[in-house]
């Protein structure tokens, strides 16, 4: 079995290398048959990678402990679904998943566009094949998932906190996102390599970018929710390098999704778009490097392996390649038009991009700071939470505001008067909302108050837009159907506002209290009274579970159980108790901190509106799907553009 897996990977490496070399020669010498053969090789490489992946999956499910990988990441008692999830629980498996998704995406993108975008596809194939051959090489030569050993009786097991439905879904979702960013990058590179730098590469990859971005965004929220309900420190995001690793490419991709609209419409920002798409791709690979190399300390655990150097080399090489390409094609990337006014739709897009990229780069600076300070200051220093929080506010709040202005402001040139007229409702509503919030006591946090006022502003603009559009077309469904991209975008905007409301509510207005309680005693936190009523012990199949029972009274009534699981393996983990008030979307979050005699130290957090974050995740998903949905009009536009490019 392991031999089959190893052989399949060698075949994948051979095929991707062939597709890379033959594809390059075919494209350079315009040899159609060679290019076709390279494309077929990429499709075949996907096939052989599927075989390799299947071998590993079967070994995992069958608990074949002659595989070092299976031995290291699973154990006999592990259920099938968690055994399978160990596929992405370790380094070698997740690299294989990366290659699988990459070759699959690449083959699909090449086959789907082979007729319409032939001139680009001849270059897309070698670019994707080149990237894939790097991963195949790593899998064959450095980190093989098919190393074998004398069959062990049992494996080392998967840590209990990873045996969780979230950990089944969250990593593959992120991978679909990370790897998906390769496709627009490959098309952009192909546009430059072929010299056909018209807008077709953008139109053709819009859905790929959107899908990758959706997976990356939703995957991050899944991870945040997992941390919140399972890890039990009361938060959902800690600005940890590995979390930032997913945030950075998402921010770059968000900027890209917006700026391509300016290029499609006005023929501007061509160089900028090339830079952004390369940045998103590089940050995705860099994210993998971060998670795998252990170069930066993180509370996530790392494999300290030689693989880091390979990834760093790859990131440097592909960055140099991208920069060289852009410099070489600079003359072709001149803008058709110029920015006419600082008060226009184009300019608003530009501001949005600047803030997004600035936020992305400040996060990158924070992530790299321990390494850079070590090299240049001689002492490793780390950026703490206030650094990130500061920049999230300073760049995030203006972004929130722009989300309301951008979709309504006129292209080319807008006057202050017309803008104020368009925005009279949103401005009015946000002033009223701000006053009401101050009256309600929300002024205790200034950033929170600003975030809420801006949120009211943006939500009103979306409502105004929907009402205006519905009046014009007659029905909401028809309106959305006619321009899915625009209205899907509005839904996504609404979800980001909800996210902002949830984050502001649960951080700026949260209450934390710690207290030692004996049975019968109670404490009051932000209008909630929790009374410690008793201690329960039970035994599950994997752990002894200790649970403190608390009754909740005051604004809400209910029972909360919180405690500790003592696993038979010797590990312990906290099981937090959460009571949700669905009307206020507020959580009462109770941590069993420490037992002392017959008393327990409880930590109680009251987090207003925190559930808005999770609801926002689904709204985000819905809006992205609306924007992604196949659109006949857009297909026609692509064909029209193609005709134009040929003519």
């Amino acid at each position, binding site marked *: 079995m392991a031999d089959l897996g190893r052989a399949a990977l060698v075949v994948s490496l051979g095929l991707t290398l062939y597709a890379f070399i033959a594809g390059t020669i075919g494209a350079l010498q315009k040899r159609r048959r060679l290019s076709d053969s390279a494309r077929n090789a990429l499709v075949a490489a996907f096939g052989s990678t599927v075989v390799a992946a299947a071998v590993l999956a079967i070994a995992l499910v069958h608990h074949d402990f002659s595989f070092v990988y299976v031995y290291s990441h699973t154990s006999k008692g592990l259920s099938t679904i968690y055994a399978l999830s160990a596929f992405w629980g*370790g380094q070698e498996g997740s690299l294989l998943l990366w290659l699988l998704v990459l070759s699959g995406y690449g083959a699909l993108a090449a086959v789907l566009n082979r007729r319409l975008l032939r001139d680009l596809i001849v270059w897309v194939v070698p670019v994707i094949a080149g990237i894939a051959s790097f991963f195949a090489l790593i899998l064959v030569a450095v980190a093989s998932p098919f190393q074998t050993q004398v069959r062990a009786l049992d494996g080392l097991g998967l840590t209990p906190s*990873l045996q969780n439905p979230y950990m089944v879904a969250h990593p593959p979702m992120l991978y679909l996102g990370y790897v998906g960013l390769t496709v627009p990058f490959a098309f952009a590179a192909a546009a430059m390599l072929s010299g056909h730098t018209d807008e077709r590469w953008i139109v053709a990859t819009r859905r790929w970018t959107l899908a990758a971005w959706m997976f990356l965004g939703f995957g991050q929220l899944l991870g945040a929710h997992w941390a919140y309900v399972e890890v039990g*420190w009361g938060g959902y995001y800690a600005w940890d390098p590995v979390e930032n690793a997913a945030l950075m490419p998402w921010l770059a991709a968000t900027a890209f999704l917006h700026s391509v609209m300016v290029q499609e419409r006005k023929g501007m920002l061509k160089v900028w778009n090339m830079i952004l798409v390369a940045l998103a791709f590089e940050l995705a690979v860099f994210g993998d490097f971060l998670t795998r190399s252990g170069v930066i300390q993180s*509370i*996530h*655990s790392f494999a300290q392996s030689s693989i880091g150097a390979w990834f760093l080399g790859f990131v440097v090489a592909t960055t140099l390649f991208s920069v060289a390409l852009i410099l070489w094609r600079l003359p072709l990337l001149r803008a058709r038009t110029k920015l006419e006014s600082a008060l226009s739709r184009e300019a608003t897009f530009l501001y949005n991009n600047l803030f997004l990229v600035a936020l992305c780069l400040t996060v990158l600076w924070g992530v790299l700071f321990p390494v850079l300070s070590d090299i240049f200051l001689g002492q490793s220093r780390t950026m703490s939470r206030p650094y990130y929080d500061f920049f999230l506010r300073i760049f995030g709040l203006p972004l929130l505001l722009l989300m309301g202005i951008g979709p309504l402001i006129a292209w080319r040139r807008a006057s202050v008067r017309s803008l104020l007229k368009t925005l009279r409702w949103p401005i009015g509503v946000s002033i009223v909302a701000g006053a009401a919030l101050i009256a309600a006591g929300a002024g205790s946090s200034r950033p929170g108050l600003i975030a809420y006022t801006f949120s009211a502003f943006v939500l009103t603009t979306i409502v105004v837009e929907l009402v205006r559009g519905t009046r014009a077309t007659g029905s909401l469904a028809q309106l959305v159907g006619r321009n899915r991209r625009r209205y899907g975008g509005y839904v996504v905007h609404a979800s980001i506002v909800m996210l902002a409301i949830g984050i502001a509510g649960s951080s700026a207005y949260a209450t934390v209290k710690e207290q030692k309680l004996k049975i019968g005693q109670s404490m009051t936190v932000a209008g909630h009274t929790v009374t410690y009523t008793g201690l329960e012990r039970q035994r599950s199949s994997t752990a002894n579970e200790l649970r403190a029972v608390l009754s909740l009274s005051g604004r809400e009534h209910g029972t909360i159980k919180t405690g500790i699981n003592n696993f038979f393996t010797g590990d312990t983990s906290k099981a937090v108790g959460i009571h949700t008030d669905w009307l206020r979307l507020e959580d009462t979050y109770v*941590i069993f901190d*420490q037992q*002392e005699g017959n008393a327990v130290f409880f930590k109680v957090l009251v987090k207003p509106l925190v559930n808005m974050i999770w609801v926002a995740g689904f709204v985000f998903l819905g809006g992205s799907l609306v924007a992604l949905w196949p659109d006949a009009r857009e297909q026609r536009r692509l064909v029209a553009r193609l005709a134009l490019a040929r003519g």
Partner: protein
Amino acid sequence: MVALAVAGVLAVFLLYTALGGNSTPLLQPSNLANHAGTISLTGKVRGPVTGDAKVGGLQFGLHNIKGESPVVPIVFRGSVPDLFKVGRDVNLTGHLDAKGAFVANQMTTKCPSKYTATPNKTA
């Protein structure tokens, strides 16, 4: 105009890093000596572990992840993460007191190495 906007963003950034900074030194027991202020200290836990994190403080020793000496005495008050154990790698935030002990109020554990590269957070 674009250049102006970029310059503005850059100015905010530089101003912030110049004024606040908010960076904390990342040290290990071997280079901890004589550092004042808030420090982020990483090392391996050495027994015995005595005391109580809620009353008086949990006391244990910490040495470099690679290398057994020096051992810095730690006094920790706060929430002890699930994975805390003798022999595990931990990261502590705190400061040095006058007697040379490291007084910490935040601890995160790094996972045992067999669980490679999958997120596991206990902060």
